[in-house]
């Protein structure tokens, strides 16, 4: 089963990396934005928060649209051929999830390293905590991606929904623009947006050395949401042709 799972992951990588637009969207564009953010004033944590905002936004976009690629596979028939093969559903999904998570982890690592090494971001502590928060965030967004893939029929629909969710969650989630006296709606978006929880948790770790014990709330929220959405998405995709 492991061999089949890894083969699915490998084929996914080969397909992804053969598409130059994917590489531009996943790596070049967030790097460009990370560089642009380095011109922001370096006071009151504005620059650091913007960098982390770029990270959580692009990781979310990447994961949601990658999960939508399952629908592209449905359209090209490879999903049906996989489901008709002698490969268990859990191996198929493990292969997809491994690919999504690895790409997101590499993307996040690259953005953090480029921020630190190229643009002088002051990340000097809490690497273990950082890894935990990123892993839980990636899990939550993968769950949301699979949920959308189960909900919609085409990758275009998933991309539209993903863009909306990510932009609203990032722009109105108290990440790029600190909110003074936010409305009830904005407060609600901030309270439910995994991007907002992740960006603030990462900031607390990297700038203030927050320990995991103080991050239970964001971890529980992102983990619980991810588990719920992942389960719903997996069940839906299993029964849909």
């Amino acid at each position, binding site marked *: 089963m492991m061999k089949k799972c890894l083969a699915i992951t490998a084929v996914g990588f080969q397909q992804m990396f053969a598409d130059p637009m994917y590489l531009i969207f996943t790596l070049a564009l967030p790097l460009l934005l990370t560089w642009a953010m380095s011109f922001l004033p370096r006071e009151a944590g504005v620059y650091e928060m913007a960098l982390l905002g770029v990270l959580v936004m692009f990781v979310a976009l990447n994961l949601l649209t990658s999960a939508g690629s399952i629908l592209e596979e449905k359209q090209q028939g490879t999903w049906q051929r996989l*489901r008709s093969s002698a490969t268990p559903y859990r191996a198929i999904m493990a292969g997809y999830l491994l690919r999504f998570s690895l790409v997101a982890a590499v993307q996040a690592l690259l953005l953090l390293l480029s921020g630190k090494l190229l643009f002088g971001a002051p990340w000097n502590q809490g690497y273990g905590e950082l890894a935990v928060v990123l892993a839980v965030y990636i899990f939550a967004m993968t769950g949301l991606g699979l949920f959308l893939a189960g909900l919609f029929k085409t990758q275009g629909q998933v991309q539209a929904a993903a863009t909306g969710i990510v932009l609203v969650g990032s722009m109105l989630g108290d990440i790029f623009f600190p909110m003074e006296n936010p409305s009830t709606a904005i407060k609600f978006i901030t309270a439910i947006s995994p991007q907002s929880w992740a960006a603030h948790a990462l900031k607390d770790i990297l700038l203030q050395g927050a320990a995991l014990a103080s991050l239970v709330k964001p971890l529980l929220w992102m983990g619980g949401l991810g588990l719920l959405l992942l389960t719903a998405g997996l069940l839906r995709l299993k029964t849909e042709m």
Partner: protein
Amino acid sequence: MILEVKQLEKSFGARRAVAGINLLLNEGEVLGLLGPNGAGKTTTLAMIGGLLQPEAGSITIGGWDLQRHPLQAKALLGIVPQEPALYPQLSAAANLRFWGTMQGLQRSELNKAVAEALAVVGLTERARERVVNYSGGMKRRLNIAAGILHRPKLLIMDEPTVGVDPQSRNHIHETVKRLQCAGTAIIYTSHYVEEVEELCGRVLIMDAGKVVAAGTVAELLRAAGHAQELVIKVNRPHQAVLSRLTAIPGVREAVMVGQAFKLLTLKAEQVLPLAYEYLLSQGLQVSAIEIHKPNLESLFLKLTGKSLRDQ
């Protein structure tokens, strides 16, 4: 017996897509599955392929119940979907290696199986080329290779020749015959009546979720009692001649359509000389004669009220 389908049922909301299908298929048998759109063919094939759960009934492949032992049953199954289900950015060989792995082929047997499958569909020379650069016919042949790679006992081929050039079509026909000789049981759907008649030992016609006819082509045509249609085009057809043509022994019915008389008969060879002689004796010039033998197309039209090619 390689495939046994019993009382298969499936509904989508209020619509009953498959209503109690039974099906038996032996090794080396090719079954033509025909039906208009919405007949339940795709749903039936999706259930046999393990993509949809039936609401009632059972599917057994090679003795394995598909619901209770899906992996064992699916290991005996090959699928050739209507549209090529391949990864376009990978080479043909990489695609086949991937699908072979998914079917459980071990590394030691994988390379040999890939080479054999490529040879069967005539793509050995193009094995390293990316699929995105293949022609439509080549993609369909590779699609077949991906379905037969693991030497399945049962192969489902869903309209494998749609939109392919004559050369690729012939190649696909030859492949089907070779697989049949090797003992593979095949379910073959097509809108081309000629290839169903050529390839399929038995035919099953579905409509509204049910089997409306089943048997060999000869049995189906005999049971339907179809008459041949004799079409004689003349320069000046008229009603007086038509009534005399109707009186020729062996003619069941005669009609005038445009410049032609159409005679329905079970004995076209006997009726034709008599009709021809009579028309000449009336001073008419015969410009064309056609005999339309009964075929699956006309039977399908009769049973379903729809044309096979209009699907």
